[in-house]
């Protein structure tokens, strides 16, 4: 019944006569599915709307003041090593002034009604949104992160955090069984360089919502968005002294956390410094919350949605160049799918675009500082030395600035340094497991306990795993999801205390 195609001179044209695109070159050895034909030209975010000062003072008592030492240090763009601005170097007497300003402001601020405090927080949140383009560009310039991330994640998430806590300020009476609680006083806050503005929002928003005042020290390499936030505080007509910002190196942080005028210290950063702070605060009566390092396990079961799990792993370890305390830096993949999984992972990683943080198509930006690059390089060397196998896609890195290609280690033993120590860079250590029980054992075999990820199609297994994984956050079939309503924090050497949600609010209140 079927009509066979005609075999006459009216024979249709061969497909080979189709208009052809340039014939693609065969891929280099080992590269699957090469893609070199369709290159994206640089699509650079404009910096025209950004005006940086040559020199920034300290923000104390509602205005910018010169540091006592008169000293300034440069803050540079890690993608070019060019100086962006000079930033004040605070000393102990500046910290004194800041804590004093915050103490004076506390008397007024803590007596405002929740509704009045909420108005200021809403104003800060809206101004932050209005200036989001400027903040995103400065965040990328100062810290090296891709503009796609600072634009789509850091700045919106910071604004969201302020909005969320603005909403709590007049509802504290309904948040806790023990009553509305009382503000503590002056809070000393020290934040890291990986999410400068977002960590500021995580710290400042709950403190202000609950009636506390703050002295905040941003990281030495990324002070600029905090200083822009100081300007936003001025714009919002926040009462002077409610937010104070002191800049400088580790000694400023040390002076701040030891200051007797503080009621509480909130620190996010390395485990080593966290331990030092805890020792220094012992017996001082100050409250303390610490959000420290991590070495999160990302567990992939054989029934997981494989390509989406690959995507989750990529997001988990290469987001923000791996400068993420909850980065999924230990991949635990079930042995039965290890080979197809890694094949897909390598292909996906070969597509990552490393380069100019201001290019809208950049997936991986610059390493935050020379010091951090040195640390990453040293640990990767150690990994090679210990016999693990290193895969890096052949991506070209710029000549100037601090760069490290996305890296995957296979053949990693749990005893290797790269499987135990936090690298805080785009370096993934891959291990395998055979059974769910073994996955839990391997995942929990760490000093840290901040986060973990699980990929499986089985809902019951997600619950089974999350009951057993010792981590403050367990993501299931996703990774790196944050919400101001969801408390974030760690176990063991990842710290204690929670940020976000009512649990985060409680850290800034006393109920006795």
């Amino acid at each position, binding site marked *: 019944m*079927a009509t*066979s*195609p005609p075999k006459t001179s009216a024979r249709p*044209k061969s497909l080979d006569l189709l208009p052809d*695109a340039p014939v693609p070159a065969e891929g280099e050895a080992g590269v699957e599915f090469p*893609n070199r*034909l*369709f290159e*994206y030209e640089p699509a650079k975010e404009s910096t025209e709307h950004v005006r940086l000062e040559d020199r920034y003072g300290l923000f104390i008592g509602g205005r910018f003041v010169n540091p006592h030492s008169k000293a300034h240090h440069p803050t540079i763009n890690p993608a070019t090593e060019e100086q962006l601005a000079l930033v004040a170097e605070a000393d102990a007497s500046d910290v004194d002034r800041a804590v004093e300003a915050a103490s004076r402001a506390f008397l007024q601020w803590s007596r405002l009604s929740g509704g009045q405090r909420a108005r200021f927080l809403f104003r800060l949140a809206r101004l932050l949104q209005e200036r989001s383009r400027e903040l995103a560009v400065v965040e990328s310039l100062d810290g090296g992160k891709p503009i796609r991330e600072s634009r789509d994640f850091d700045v919106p998430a910071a604004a969201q955090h302020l909005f969320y806590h603005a909403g709590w300020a007049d509802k504290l009476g309904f948040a806790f069984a023990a009553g509305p609680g009382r503000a503590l006083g002056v809070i000393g806050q020290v934040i890291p360089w990986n999410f400068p503005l977002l960590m500021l929002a995580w710290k400042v928003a709950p403190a202000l919502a609950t009636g506390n005042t703050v002295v905040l020290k941003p990281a030495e390499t990324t002070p600029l968005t905090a200083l822009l936030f100081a300007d936003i505080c001025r714009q919002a007509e926040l009462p002077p002294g409610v937010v104070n910002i002191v800049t400088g190196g580790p000694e400023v942080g040390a002076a701040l956390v030891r200051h007797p005028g503080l009621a509480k210290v909130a620190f996010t950063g390395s485990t080593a410094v966290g331990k030092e702070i805890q020792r220094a605060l012992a017996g001082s009566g100050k409250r303390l919350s610490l959000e420290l390092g991590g070495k999160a396990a990302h567990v992939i079961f054989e029934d997981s949605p494989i390509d*989406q799990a690959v995507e989750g792993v990529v997001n988990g370890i290469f987001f923000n160049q791996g400068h993420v305390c909850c980065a999924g830096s230990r991949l635990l993949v079930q042995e039965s799918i290890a080979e197809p999984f890694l094949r897909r992972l390598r292909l996906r990683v070969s597509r990552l675009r490393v380069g100019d943080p201001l290019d809208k198509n950049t997936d991986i930006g610059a390493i935050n500082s020379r010091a951090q690059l040195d640390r990453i390089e040293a640990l990767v060397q150690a990994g090679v030395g210990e016999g693990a196998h290193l895969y890096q896609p052949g991506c070209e890195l710029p000549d100037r600035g601090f760069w490290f290609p996305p890296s995957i280690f296979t053949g990693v033993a749990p005893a290797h340094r790269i499987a135990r120590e936090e690298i805080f860079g785009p370096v993934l250590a891959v291990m395998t497991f055979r059974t769910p029980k073994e996955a839990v054992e391997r995942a929990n075999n760490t000093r840290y306990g901040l986060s973990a990820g699980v990929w499986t199609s089985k809902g019951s297994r997600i619950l089974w795993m999350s009951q057993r994984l010792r981590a403050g956050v367990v993501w299931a079939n996703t990774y790196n999801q944050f919400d101001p309503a969801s408390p974030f924090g760690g176990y063991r050497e990842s710290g204690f205390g929670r940020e976000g949600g009512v649990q985060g609010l409680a850290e800034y209140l006393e109920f006795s």
Partner: protein
Amino acid sequence: MDGWVHNRDQMRNSAAASTLSATPDGAVSLDQVAVEARARLFSSRSVKRGSKLFACNLIITCTDLTTLEGSDTRGRVEVLCAKAMRPVPDDATIPAVAAVCVYPSQAATARRCLQGSPVVVASVATGFPSGQVPAEVKIAEAGEAARFAEEIDMVMDRGAFLEGRHLKVQQEIAGVKEAIGDRHLKVILETGELGGLDQVRRASWLAMEAGADFIKTSTGKIQPAATLPVAVVMLEAIRDFAWATGREIGFKPAGGIRSAKQAVAYLVAVNEILGDRWLRPQRFRIGASSLLNDVLMQIYKERRGGYQSPQDFSEA
């Protein structure tokens, strides 16, 4: 006679690969939220200047210029064919499209118009768009269409697919493939009717195993038609199929792609998932009726630095 293929093992047994392994095939489960996140990444790529020109030219070269209306006439098809061969009559730098896609009854007209040009005729078949006609009629229609068309766009039997009769789906595709000889076979999955991404993956795999040269998202008659998340799933299935069998299958999104920006997002997805070998009309097509003029506008905008009026381009 119809096989009832329910689970992974049975599916594998029905395929050439019979060893039980965890290598992804048609039966992998997918996570919709994560697929959508990946799709957003493709549509957020910023493709400007030279890369946009490259993309726009490639899109034209890979377009199946389509008219599939009950009101199609010889006159209408002639106009479309003229546009297909020379999208801008006074500008020879604009390439011809890949194919003109019509109903079987218009295939002869299209063939006459396109004689001597590089543009080929594609004809839909097998009871397009619903596919709800007897199997013999489908075979006969495809064979008839193949007398004039170099490419056959058949519709997959969604009814059988949703009943779980996967073997019937495959037998029908194989039957059409046999009836059309060396013509290229595009299998339309009509992803908007399948009910989810797991089903898209499964249908893609079934079609490729049964002999499809291309897998195509939609008829354009059902909403949603082509979407980026569906494209991601189909492209990853194509990649896995190439790994499993060494065969490179083409991809054709169709339906609802009206702007160059949308089309570029699909091209970006193809580029980043499959790469260079798929950036050509032998492996990639876009089925569209109204996309071409927007692509032309974008090309002239890049060349001349300003937009031209839509009236500057001919209808078709």
